[in-house]
């Protein structure tokens, strides 16, 4: 079953057909979402009503286009804000974790490493509710004992950031640590023997080497945060992040505006994905 071993022609044809079918299955749902963004009809379904850009550009109800829909634009902004914070936090913590696990020896190291991996195997909904429960416990305690009411410990944008960070940090740690592992420490020692302090050596030699991994981790963190649903669902407050707002509209049944939004998301995340592949491949 490798090219060098002859197989009956019927087998090869069947196998090829199966692979082709698989890729149709893969692309079909995304393709229909994209195509119906241009359908001149109130519903994202057949019959095809002709080509239109209304679902992007029109500015009046009921055919409100994406770029004039204040509520959706606001939720895009909320998601963007959340994703930026999650990215900064998880890349920073991921970098310190990478140095900790790759460079240092300390008691319980392998135990801590395993603990660090755990957020990946906890279902997102459960991460969400555990953080919701815990922050409410703190908030109730503060309110009952000291009369302080901290609004951000109730479902809010702050909690969404914290909740998403709790598992995205694992991913950034793994990405950055994988590259740091390949780094030759002799380079750092050379810098130090040329008179650089330890910190300067790390800043001027190691960090530039880590940059592709850091950029790659940042892109992945940003996208995972922007598209997260399960954890966000439990923690979102009155400012709805985009996925929560989209979910609401999907359940109500929506105009092709939702297709327009989906197409926009696909284009942006596709671009970012290509960028991350490019960044990580470039310097390896």
């Amino acid at each position, binding site marked *: 079953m490798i090219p060098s071993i002859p197989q009956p022609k019927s087998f090869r044809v069947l*196998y090829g057909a199966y692979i082709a079918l698989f890729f149709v299955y893969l692309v079909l749902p995304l393709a229909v979402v994209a195509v119906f963004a241009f359908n001149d009809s109130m519903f994202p379904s057949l019959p095809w009503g002709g080509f239109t850009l209304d679902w992007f550009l029109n500015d009046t109800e009921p055919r409100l286009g994406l770029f004039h829909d204040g509520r959706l634009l606001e939720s895009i902004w909320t998601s963007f804000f959340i994703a930026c914070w999650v990215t900064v936090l998880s890349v920073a913590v991921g970098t310190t974790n990478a140095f900790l696990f790759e460079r240092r020896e300390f008691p319980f190291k392998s135990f801590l490493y*395993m603990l660090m991996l755990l957020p990946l195997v906890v279902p997102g909904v459960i991460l969400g509710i555990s953080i919701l429960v815990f922050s409410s416990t703190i908030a109730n305690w503060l309110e009952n004992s000291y009369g302080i009411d901290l609004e951000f410990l109730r479902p809010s944008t702050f909690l969404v950031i914290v909740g998403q960070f709790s598992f995205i940090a694992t991913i950034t740690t793994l990405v950055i640590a994988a590259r740091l592992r390949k780094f030759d420490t002799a380079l750092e020692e050379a810098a130090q023997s040329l008179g650089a302090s330890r910190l300067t050596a790390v800043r001027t030699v190691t960090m530039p080497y880590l940059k592709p991994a850091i950029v790659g981790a940042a892109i992945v963190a940003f996208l995972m945060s922007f598209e997260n649903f399960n954890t966000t669902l439990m923690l979102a407050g009155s400012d709805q992040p985009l996925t929560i707002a989209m979910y609401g509209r999907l359940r109500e049944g929506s105009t092709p505006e939702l297709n327009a939004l989906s197409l926009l998301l696909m284009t942006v995340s596709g671009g970012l994905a290509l960028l991350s592949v490019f960044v990580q491949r470039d310097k390896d």
Partner: protein
Amino acid sequence: MNLKAATRLSLFLLMAPLLVWLIGLIILPHADMLAISLRERVAVRTYEFSFANYGEFFNEPLYWRTFARTAIMSIVATALTLLISFPVSYYIAKMLRGRLKAFLFLLCLVPFWVSELVRTFGWMILLRESGVFSNVLQWVGMADGPVEMLYNDATIMVGLVYTSMLFMVVPLVTTLDSLEDAQVEAGYDLGGNAFSVLRTIIIPHAMPGIVSGCIVVFMLTLGNYLTPVLLGGKDNLWFTAQIYTQFITRFNWEQGAAFGFLLLGLSSLIVWSGLKLSRQTLTETMG
């Protein structure tokens, strides 16, 4: 400050973010959730230790049936994902070379970069009563009227498998890639046929990828919320939806926390036994 003290200080500084993260956001929240699941409200603002919330789960058939259904469907979805992805991964890893190989592999990653909402939306457009498939069937004359393909278990399965595919393909392609062609050829030279080579050479070699793929897929399916709820409709029974109902609709956090722990328990059990069966550790599989 001497050198030893400086080393210890820097170790402490490096470890602080890790500890704040793991203790503050993972360990304490889960401990608190456990504590809340083990209490019962006896009067306003008065709670007592009790196993009542777990008892409720076993006494109310709806709850444990939903739980069992979620578990079984997740196992089926994982098996299907493996069956469908394995030939594809093998094709990409061993039958193709060069650009086409890289391109098809990247194509497999596409759904990952697209939000799950968008993917599910795509399936809704395809499968609903006024959807693309229904229209195509009527057009070719295989159906007389609109066909509703949403809101049943098969549809949920299609959606779950679709969402999980990538998490199976990537580890499989990675492990299969490292299989030497010569090993497969040797199998044939020694008189093996396609089936025996697959069973004794290819599958054992791919085992680490199969295990890590299955673990991730199972876990994601079990914890999925969007796909079952959107493709399965209102009356669909999925355990995460029960958790959501307890927390948000009924505001019964004690019961919801107990459900959360049961789901976490099942998920951990499956991950753990998967690792044990294949004699791997979490660190090897994920790291």
